[in-house]
């Protein structure tokens, strides 16, 4: 997330912030009013990547918290437990929920993100 944001901020023409400052903005206001809207897509992408990684995390959860039903049962752990116990119905439900979350997240990104035609060439 930090790497994505750093690259995004570095990609914005710093002179736009300079112009904003000559028009009365403090450095923080110039960042919020000029840079932040321009990197909205990258912020969203970074958030979704981070969230997706956290949502799908399996190994770290298993190592640190174990796989206990109703206690440390994240969705990937639930899929693992259901598969281990042969509960195919619960397995399908868990997998479907995970797939639905992925689609909803992508849909939200499409809606909230800046469309290509709204962006200036080169940005």
């Amino acid at each position, binding site marked *: 997330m930090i790497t994505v944001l750093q690259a995004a901020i570095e990609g914005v023409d710093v*002179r*736009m912030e300079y112009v904003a400052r*000559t028009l*009365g903005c403090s450095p923080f206001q110039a960042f919020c009013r000029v840079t932040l809207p321009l990197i909205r897509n990258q912020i969203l992408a970074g958030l979704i990547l981070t969230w997706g990684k956290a949502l799908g995390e399996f190994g770290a959860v298993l190592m640190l918290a174990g796989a206990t039903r109703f206690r440390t049962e994240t969705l990937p752990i639930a899929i693992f437990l259901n598969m281990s116990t042969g509960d195919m119905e619960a397995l399908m439900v868990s997998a479907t929920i995970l797939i639905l979350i992925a689609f909803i997240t992508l849909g939200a990104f499409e809606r909230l993100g*800046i469309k290509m035609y709204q962006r200036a060439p080169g940005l």
Partner: protein
Amino acid sequence: MKVKLTLEGIAKKLGDFSLKEISLEVKPGEYFVILGPSGAGKTVLLEILAGIYPPDQGKIWLGERDITHWPPEKRRFGFVYQDHALFPHPTVEGNIRFGLRDSRLNPLQRKQEIRETADLLGIAHLLSRQPHTLSGGESQRVALARALITRPPVLLLDEPLSSLDPPTREILQQELKRLHLIFGSIFIHVTHDFEEAFFLGERIGVLMGGN
């Protein structure tokens, strides 16, 4: 506000480049052109004037006030870059309105002010457009409107015409002269074009290798 702008021994070192003791007095309401080749330090000088970089030494006076350590938001000098640096996310109207954010005008007066400035620059029909749909000449007019709407005491123009085709450049040269007469602020225009400098400048300063 008609005041003179004075630079006293301004020096700045940026990496390998250094601007060496620039002293200059620009008269109230004067159109001053700084002529120099690429890499002479013209843009750095303008950015120092705007308050973006502090000078390593020397002083800048606006009338009787020492503004050397004033940040850009306090100086409120207009700045127009060569490639316009329009904000791509708001419309043309949003770009022009940007400088009026903290003005005391009510929304109706603001709208009126934007309309008047746009009329003056001949861009009233472009107000609802997105910046990336504009031509070079139109973008430059929008950048000028955005800078001029705040009535800056000094307008800094960094090679504003060099990315335009010759006919548009000629038209905009005339426009700049007209705007200078209307607004009466100090215009400091940097260029590497002799003809442009002689056409526009009431006085011309030459900057070469930071001198």
